[in-house]
């Protein structure tokens, strides 16, 4: 069953200028994005900074409105929900942010932070049961009851992210949107948080949308991965198939940039360069200017087509006859 369905979502940011004389600055951020999240699966959104992955996650959460297109969560179009329906949607879907230093209110202690969702939705009002819920939540993210009275600044980045996860879990959601939850943490802590997310996902039978720019992180957690570039989805595939058979030149270039933990192999690998060519600026494919394969064949706008079972790729030049090498990780 599809928990989240994203249908042809477009998002354009418009900046109105004072004294603009009718001119508008329009920046397209998402172009015709369609995706779905199945029950108890993890959907990864991967791409470089500014490709629209965070905007997409905000649109799913209803924190931003799509310019056109539909987002259907648990069978309901979120743009058509009433205020009460929207509030109910919050209990279904929760979020973890990238920066644990800015996602916790510095003037609230841990107890107040984790209590807030319960207060808003009027759950566990009785003192004893509230306390028990808070303690269980902290325990489930690897913290203990003694942390309840402390303030965010007394914790490390990893611990803060655990608090943020506990807050997201307080409403017992079915869907968790994780917006680069580990990219602000150092590598050893990243592993702990990733393990925690995986454990929680299995225990609570959660579905997740996992935003990341790190393929290694995405591979660990995701079942399906969508590769985004300039607001477009260039490739969408089951995680393992994507890693063993990357199709799009962009995915390939990104893989080539991920180092392999084997010096002998790493030395032989050749990075695909993403040089930018100014003569390709008006090309229908947004990636053409940086693409090593851009050629006369691909003068049509790219659209997602199934190249292998369940594996979609948006490149007009596929399949390549003269592929240089395979960069499967």
């Amino acid at each position, binding site marked *: 069953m599809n928990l989240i369905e994203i249908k042809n979502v477009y998002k354009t940011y418009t900046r109105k200028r004072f004294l603009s004389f009718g001119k508008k600055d329009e920046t397209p951020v998402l172009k015709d994005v369609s995706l779905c999240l199945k029950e108890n699966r993890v959907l990864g959104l991967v791409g470089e900074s500014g490709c629209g992955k965070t905007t997409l996650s905000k649109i799913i959460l209803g924190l931003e409105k799509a310019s056109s297109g539909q987002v259907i969560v648990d069978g309901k179009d979120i743009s058509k929900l009433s205020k009460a329906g929207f509030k109910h949607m919050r209990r279904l879907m*929760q979020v973890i942010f990238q920066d644990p230093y800015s996602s916790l*209110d510095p003037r609230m202690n841990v107890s107040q932070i984790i209590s*807030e969702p319960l207060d808003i939705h009027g759950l566990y009002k009785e003192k004893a049961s509230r306390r028990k819920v808070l303690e269980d939540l902290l325990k489930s993210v690897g913290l203990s009851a003694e942390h309840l009275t402390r303030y965010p600044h007394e914790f490390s980045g990893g611990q803060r992210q655990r608090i943020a996860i506990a807050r997201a879990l307080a409403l017992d959601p079915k869907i968790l949107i994780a917006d680069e939850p580990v990219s602000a943490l150092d590598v050893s802590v990243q592993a702990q948080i990733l393990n925690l997310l995986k454990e929680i996902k299995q225990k609570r039978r959660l579905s997740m949308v996992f935003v990341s720019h790190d393929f290694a992180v995405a591979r660990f957690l995701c079942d399906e991965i969508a590769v985004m570039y300039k607001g477009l989805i260039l490739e969408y595939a089951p995680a393992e198939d994507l890693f063993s058979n990357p199709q799009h030149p962009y995915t390939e270039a990104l893989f080539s940039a991920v180092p392999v933990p084997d010096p002998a192999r790493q030395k032989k690998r050749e990075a695909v360069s993403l040089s930018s060519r100014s003569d390709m600026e008006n090309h229908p494919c947004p990636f053409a200017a940086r693409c090593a394969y851009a050629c006369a064949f691909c003068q049509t706008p790219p659209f997602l087509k199934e190249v292998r079972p369940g594996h979609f790729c948006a490149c007009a030049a596929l399949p390549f006859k003269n592929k240089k090498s395979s960069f499967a990780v």
Partner: protein
Amino acid sequence: MLQNRIFKRFTRNKTSLVGLLLVCFFAFIALFAPVLAPVDNARNPYQMPQSSYAIEPQAPSASHWFGTTEQQYDLYYGVVWGTRFAFKIGITVTFFAFLIGLLVGSMAAYFGGKTDEVIMRLTDVVFAVPSLVLAMVIAAMLGPDIKNMMIALTAVAWPSYARLVRGDILSVKQRDFVTAARALGAGGPRIMLRHILPNSIYPSVVVASLDIGYIVLTAASLSFLGLGAQPGTADWGQLVAMARNWVLGTSGNTLAYWYTVFIPGGAIFLFVLGWNLLGDAFRDILDPRQG
């Protein structure tokens, strides 16, 4: 953490300590004014006792510790009750200016767009006129009275708070914990009162502590010009105004009546200095960039 920083600041930095001591000293005088200078006229303790109607000020003596000013008002009584008066004006005006600024600034930041534009341009208009001049005009229009003077001072003091609060709210609004609260289902008032205001109010508190001194100074200027407290009121500005004819002393002795200027003037000077140093200390303590 905050307690530690406050303690560190005051033990390390001598000027902060001086500021704290000065303000505490004045607060003590204001609090114990009835003990330090027993009230003569119970109906209006701010009315200075007058021992005679003789014009010439009298030098400090056993019966008048600080001497007397024009028309024999006791300077000691005036300075002591003037301290209480200064606190009353400074705190009342700052409180209301803060409140109005907070309301206006948060409205501008919350509604944004055209509302913001209109509100902020209005505050700019108030900003554009020098505050002392504007306060004088308003006070003169309303008529010389203490209450009117306080209204005039409030009217010129609120825009700086409005601007500050608006800017801080706009920056806090961007932080992830506000988005997180929205994602949890929190409504507008809850986000404003629980998350945004508690995180954006501190800079304004610092400005308020600096402002108390400045407002007392402006109030003294208005009184000096005859737009505030009436003759005979225990008000520092009023006391300085009464010294106007005696500033030059007698021929050959310029400092003959020094006490009429230096005593109330010194009180104003030390009071404003104290609040300034204390405000500086608060600013550094609440500045997260200072470790």
